[in-house]
């Protein structure tokens, strides 16, 4: 199979965080049902990889795998990458406008003004604290829910989780040199620019397991500050490799003459 194969790793992030396991919270799909992959849409996917060899025994095809992690209950990965920043900036602008209005209409401090200030403070949202460990794309950002509204400290349950990140692929299939995984950069924003890919040696049929290390992020509140804490979990899957000889499709044997009729088209026929 010369075509590439995609394995979608869909994670129910909030349940996985709540139960601290990916077991029962991960759904795997691939596009090889036609070739015998089983248990699509469950955590027990066995990806079928049909290899082939030439008549002299040499390997005829290698399979390329791509893993794409997705999150259940997050901002869809297809919205522009600057979406959260954009939404956060909008709330800042709204707050500024409201403050200006407030300043213009009340010259003397009053209880009304204080209530108004509190309301503005609530609407403006909270920024995630940046720590040494959590520096990066999500730090210093406001927390946004799946609808793109900023979330305040007292309503963080609605927060949209950052997409799961595969940080490693290892285990039997890698140890026995059946597949060679590596992380690649890509301009594709759907996968956030990075994805794991592997080439599979299809010359040794068998079933091989492998593990994925997946990083999720948990929103924690300490001393009134919010932060995304990384949580590393693992998830197992398997590859089932078969291998068959390639064959000449015209003759079903060796290379022969093309099956072109001896009659000239359009004249003698």
């Amino acid at each position: 199979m010369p075509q590439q194969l995609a394995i979608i790793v869909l994670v129910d992030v909030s349940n996985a965080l709540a139960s601290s396991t990916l077991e029962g919270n991960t759904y795997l799909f691939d596009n090889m049902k036609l070739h015998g992959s089983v248990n699509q849409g469950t955590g027990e996917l066995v990806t079928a990889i049909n290899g082939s060899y030439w008549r002299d025994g040499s390997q005829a095809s290698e399979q390329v795998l791509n893993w794409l992690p997705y999150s259940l209950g997050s901002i869809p990965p297809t919205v522009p990458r600057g979406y959260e920043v954009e939404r956060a900036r909008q709330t800042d602008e709204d707050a500024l406008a409201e403050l200006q209005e407030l300043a213009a209409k009340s010259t003397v401090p009053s209880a009304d003004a204080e209530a108004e200030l509190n309301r503005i403070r609530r609407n403006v949202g909270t920024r995630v604290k940046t720590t040494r460990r959590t520096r990066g794309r999500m730090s210093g950002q406001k927390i946004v829910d799946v609808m793109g509204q900023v979330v305040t400290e007292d309503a963080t349950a609605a927060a949209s989780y950052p997409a799961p990140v595969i940080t490693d692929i290892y285990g039997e299939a890698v140890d026995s040199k059946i597949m060679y995984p590596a992380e690649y950069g890509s301009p594709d924003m759907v996968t956030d620019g990075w994805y794991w890919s592997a080439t599979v040696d299809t010359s040794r049929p068998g079933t091989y397991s492998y593990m994925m290390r997946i990083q999720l992020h948990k929103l924690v509140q300490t001393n009134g500050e919010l932060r995304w804490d990384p949580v590393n979990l693992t998830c197992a899957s398997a590859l089932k490799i078969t291998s068959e000889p390639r064959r000449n499709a015209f003759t079903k044997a060796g290379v022969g003459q093309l099956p072109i009729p001896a009659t000239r088209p359009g004249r003698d026929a």
Partner: protein
Amino acid sequence: MKTQVNIIAVVDVIGALSVRTLLDGNLCMVDDSAFDSTHQGTADLVTVVKPGQVVSWTALAVDLQTPVEIKNISFEPANGHNGAAASGPAMSPPGSAAASKGEAHGQEESEGDKLDLDVWTGVVPHWMTPGVPYQYRLELQMYEGSNSVMSIDSPALMCQ
């Protein structure tokens, strides 16, 4: 002289399945013949070859992760298609498409899922008349199901 000529059929599988035709830019055929093949990049590719050369066909999906395989290549003149050579862009009429779909089904059960093992390679026979395009039917299988096989009758091989 090159000993091998490669023909690649690049298929926009999603496009083809959506509008149920390999025309309208959903199929783009190219070859690397040393002679002047005509209609490169279209479904009407006429590949110029010489007797004794090896011709090899490959199908590629535009979207790398969509399965497409060559289901069949046949030179047998289809009914009513004998004179199609000079009629420009041809496509299988609805009737014949349905017929080939029917045939396809029978085969599919036996070996439809092993198409990726097929190598479509053959030697150009010496009996071809030079300068005459020998049209062939290219059948493509895109994933599975009742509408997954589509064919086109317009590409051809022509001896120099």
